């Protein structure tokens, strides 16, 4: 059967895509950001996931104001990089996994999550920047991707609790897929940032780190944080962090942190990144890298 073997969270600031595409990731400004992903890039080479379920939000690229799906799952064969006004990023096409995606979509709907199904769309920086951060610049992305788009632009977005529960249902769906697949789930966006109005530039180091702490272990207190707290504490765009809760919900009751990184700033945003292993007696250790990770702590 298919198994979710790890969860990864990361900010998806578009400037990181620019830095990578124009070979600036070694500059003084960007090096401290990218350095926090060096560990993960090596780890991913060893883990070799077959599929990543990539939770992200579209930033007025594939979806405009005409249609606003709360939760949408990509069931297509492949996705091209979107033109966000600068021309599309020069990155490989993203290959889907329609068999697994349709299986998850059906399972979720039967589990009473009323998903929108997407067969064709372009994917923007919300999806391609995390791929760059985790895999650098390959000729071809090393795994297939099931995009899962969440509305966090037009209010109300889904509650944190609903996101967490969706993650739980995704885990169930993946585990009922008969093929042996190594599946990771990624939650992207965040951390604290506000891109609008006189309060723009807000960063909350303490709150962000409280949130990172809350993803580890057996606590589920993060699922109950109300929208207004994200807005007050982490800026208007900090609400993207509800997407991390879909990832966390899919890892079961207990998790162990393998790697963690936090840096301010990248453009307007606090960069946060964490790698988690489900820790409920599964005994996942895809490559022995956990031992290395634990030794490095």
């Amino acid at each position: 059967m298919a198994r979710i073997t790890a969860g990864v969270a990361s900010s998806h600031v578009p400037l990181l895509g620019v830095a990578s595409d124009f070979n600036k990731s070694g500059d003084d400004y960007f090096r401290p950001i990218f350095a926090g992903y060096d560990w993960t890039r090596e780890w991913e080479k060893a883990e070799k996931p077959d599929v990543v379920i990539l939770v992200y939000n579209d930033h007025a690229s594939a979806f405009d104001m005409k249609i606003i799906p709360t939760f949408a799952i990509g069931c297509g064969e492949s996705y091209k990089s979107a033109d966000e006004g600068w021309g599309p990023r020069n990155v490989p096409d993203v290959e889907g996994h329609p068999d697994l995606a349709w299986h998850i979509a059906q399972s979720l709907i039967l589990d009473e999550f009323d998903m929108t199904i997407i067969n064709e769309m372009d994917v923007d920086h919300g999806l391609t920047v995390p791929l760059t951060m985790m895999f650098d610049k390959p000729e071809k992305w090393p795994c297939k991707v099931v995009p899962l788009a969440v509305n966090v632009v037009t209010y109300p977005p889904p509650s944190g609790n609903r996101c967490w529960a969706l993650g739980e249902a995704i885990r169930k769906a993946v585990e009922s897929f008969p093929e042996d697949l190594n599946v990771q789930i990624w939650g992207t966006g965040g951390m604290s940032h506000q891109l609008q109005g006189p309060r723009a530039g807000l960063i909350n180091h303490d709150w962000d780190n409280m949130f990172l702490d809350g993803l580890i272990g057996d606590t589920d207190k993060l699922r109950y944080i109300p929208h207004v707290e994200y807005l007050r504490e982490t800026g208007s765009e900090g609400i993207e962090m509800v997407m991390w809760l879909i990832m966390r919900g899919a890892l079961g009751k207990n998790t162990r942190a393998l790697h963690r990184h936090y840096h301010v700033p990248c453009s307007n945003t606090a960069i946060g990144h964490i790698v988690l292993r489900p820790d409920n007696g599964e005994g996942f250790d895809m490559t022995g890298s956990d031992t290395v990770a634990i030794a490095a702590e």
Partner: protein
Amino acid sequence: MSCNENPNKVQDIHAYLAEFDDIPGTRVFIAKRARQGYHMNQFAMSLMKDENRQRFKADERAYLDEWPMTEEQKQSILDRDYNRALDLGGNVYFLSKLFSTDGISFAQAVSTMTDMNFEQYTAMMVAGGRSPEGARSIKENEANAALTKVAVEDEKFAGQVKEDR
């Protein structure tokens, strides 16, 4: 685990929406704004196509006149007055298509909405960003200001009493 009770589940949509007005310097993109700004945001979205960008750049006014936007909305776009555009229902992810049409970075455009210039804004970000202290709640700020005022007056009064003696 669908039986999980969320103690913070929203019970009153009016109270939920009203709280957003209490956040200083922030326009939350609620349905009211989404409706008001629909055509302005769709206009901005149209700038994702290169031919539209060219037409817009050639004659901004004429291009805007093709859209059923209010005069105020059009003027806010012509002025690049992004706070005004947000007030009139604009959303920053849509407006960002205009940032890239103008060839300016997201951070630069964002800085124009603050009371800082781009250099000052960048310096603030590099120093760790804007602190959430005093930026969480308008009511809380007003209450704190009132308390400070009372404290100042108390002190003045205490000084007066001392002098009188």
